[in-house]
């Protein structure tokens, strides 16, 4: 197992910048997820780590060794593809044993390790079946088996659960994570699904338009989004943004928004008058009859354990996650207040988060 270090990785296709100078380090044994919408460069980054694409510039280190321009086969990594890429002309045993055969291991050893791997993944009863008849989950397990059988330095996975249905995906998420905990392999996992990312990752990099918007633990990314893009991309429903004009000075503990004072975490930096955005997670909103911030209930969405209430305010639509004990009717006018220590502030023009007490100690968190 190994640490993966990526430095200033740049990839362009003609005029199109797919990956714009990424740098990050995946610690040995970490489950690292690259998360972002399609076309954000996450798959390209993964393919460069794998050696399936060559970077335009930058460097990739695997276990301290510069592998930037090494062949894929010389990197000692395993790749799980979205479509699994099981060889249709081979049965399960041959598929799993294929990487060992490629590097010329003796037959007895291949047999032994294939069977051991199959037991680990609980597919030992399928070993002599052709791959064409397998169900989606079993195909997935065979693909994983083919990856882990060689005990490579790192696993790279490109949306491996993308083709499975939702119920099964959750199951495979758990299986993948527990497999990772057992074999402690450095894993780089690409997905556009925030739930997969949040539930499995040790570290997440949220990517957009070739840039890494934020790199951190799932909790850091959820609680302290570094940009409006991250705040909007993570969470369902996403963070609400209340845009306003204002200036900020360090030490302040409130912002003025259309005459209303709203308490925020203590500010750590100054901003001249400009367009700002206050970020509020739906679960950090409460009804408060005394609040100056008022709005009309637009619709409510019943979700069993809680409900999502959409409120029309002067700052736009705000979605709030509420307990189900209060009955709310569309058309009602209500007051809203926020859980002040959990609010985020952004520069609305470039989307960057403004430093507040929210980020204190966050560097190490």
């Amino acid at each position, binding site marked *: 197992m190994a640490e993966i270090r990526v430095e200033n990785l740049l990839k362009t296709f003609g005029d199109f910048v797919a990956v714009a100078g990424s740098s990050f380090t995946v610690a040995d044994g970490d489950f690292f997820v690259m998360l972002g919408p399609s076309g954000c460069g996450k798959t390209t980054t993964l393919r460069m780590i794998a*050696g*399936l694409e060559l970077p335009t510039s930058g460097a990739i280190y695997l276990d301290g060794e510069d592998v930037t321009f090494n062949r894929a086969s010389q990197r000692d990594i395993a*790749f799980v593809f979205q479509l699994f890429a099981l060889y249709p002309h081979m049965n399960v045993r041959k598929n799993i044993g294929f990487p060992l055969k*490629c590097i010329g291991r003796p037959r007895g050893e291949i047999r032994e390790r294939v069977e051991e791997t199959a037991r680990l993944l609980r597919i030992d009863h399928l070993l002599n079946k052709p791959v064409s008849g397998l169900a989606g989950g079993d195909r997935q397990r065979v693909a994983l088996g083919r990856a882990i059988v060689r005990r490579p330095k790192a696993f790279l996975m490109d949306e491996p659960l993308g083709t499975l249905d939702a119920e099964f995906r959750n199951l495979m998420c758990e299986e993948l994570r527990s497999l990772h905990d057992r074999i402690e392999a450095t894993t780089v996992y690409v997905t556009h699904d925030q739930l997969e990312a949040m539930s499995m990752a040790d570290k997440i990099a949220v990517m957009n338009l070739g840039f890494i918007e934020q790199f951190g633990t799932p909790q850091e990314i959820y609680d302290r989004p570094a940009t409006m893009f991250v705040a909007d991309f993570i969470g369902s429903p996403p963070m609400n943004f209340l845009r306003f004009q204002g200036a900020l000075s360090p030490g302040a503990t409130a912002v003025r928004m259309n005459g209303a004072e709203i308490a925020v975490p203590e500010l750590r930096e100054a901003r001249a008058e400009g367009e700002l955005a206050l970020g509020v997670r739906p679960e950090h909103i409460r009804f408060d009859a005394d609040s100056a911030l008022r709005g009309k209930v637009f619709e409510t969405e019943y979700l069993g354990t809680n409900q999502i209430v959409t409120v029309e305010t002067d700052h736009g639509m705000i979605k709030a996650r509420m307990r189900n004990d209060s009955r709310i009717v569309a058309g009602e006018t209500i007051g809203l207040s926020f859980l002040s220590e959990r609010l985020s502030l952004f520069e609305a023009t470039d989307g960057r988060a403004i430093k507040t007490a929210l980020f204190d100690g966050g560097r190490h968190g």
Partner: protein
Amino acid sequence: MSASTANSVVEPKPWARRLAGAAVVLYALITIVPLIWIFLTGFKTPPDSISYPPKVIFEPSLEGYVNLFTTRTRQTAEYMASLPPPENWVERLVRDRNMVIAGPSKFGERFLNSIIIGFGSTFLSVFLGTLAAYAFSRFKVPLKDDLMFFILSTRMMPPIAVAIPIFLMYRTLGLSDTHLGMILLYTAVNISLAVWLLKGFIDEIPKEYEEAALIDGYTRLQAFVKVVLPQAATGIAATAIFCLIFAWNEYAFALLLTSGTAQTAPPFIPTIIGEGGLDWPAVAAGATLFLIPIVVFTILLRKHLLRGITFGAVRK
């Protein structure tokens, strides 16, 4: 016969099935009657083969086949009488016509030429075609679209339209009437078909398979041979049949460019002369034998062929 094979979810009306059956039978008759006639003529005697009205019922004879494989000379009655008794049925058959066998005919050689040239050019077309198609399918080839169009454009006129230039070129290069010349010529004609067909097949194979193999330790060539080729087998088989049928049946170039050493069967068969004109039973026997390899080849690969020509229409 076809009525029972109609097997759709919505059962057609009986009259429709009968009509469809009749159409199939009629079509089969139209296409198969000439073949049956050739086959039967091969077993007629020369007089029977040109009798009028044509004989459908006749006494079968192997004279056509004997004549196909031998050359014979007519002898005087005295000479015939002086010969020892015939050693086998072939000689007896020939002597009944007051002739003796002078030697083997050229048919065997010509047939062998057809096999060498037909299969040789098919192999070369498919081999080069597969490599080219793979490159076009997977790599960034400069001017890819223009090159593909250029390859296709070689099919935009009948090949025979360039017969004169090729004839002159081959004479200068010393390729006239050589196996190599004919193999190259048929390959040149077939390769555009092979590249286009095979590119379609290879495009359908997800590139993840090779990438997985590359990561697992194979080189690009190993991945191509061990992973791509097995999956392209259907396409390769279908392409091979199309190429072979063209090369096997080609007549015009063979007539123009070959006369001796490298002459293939198609220009040779119609020139089998017997006494007083064409030896029709021998011609028919030659045509019958000529059909066999291609029929066998097609039967062997027909499963692939059927899958091949409908490939891509329905995704599994």
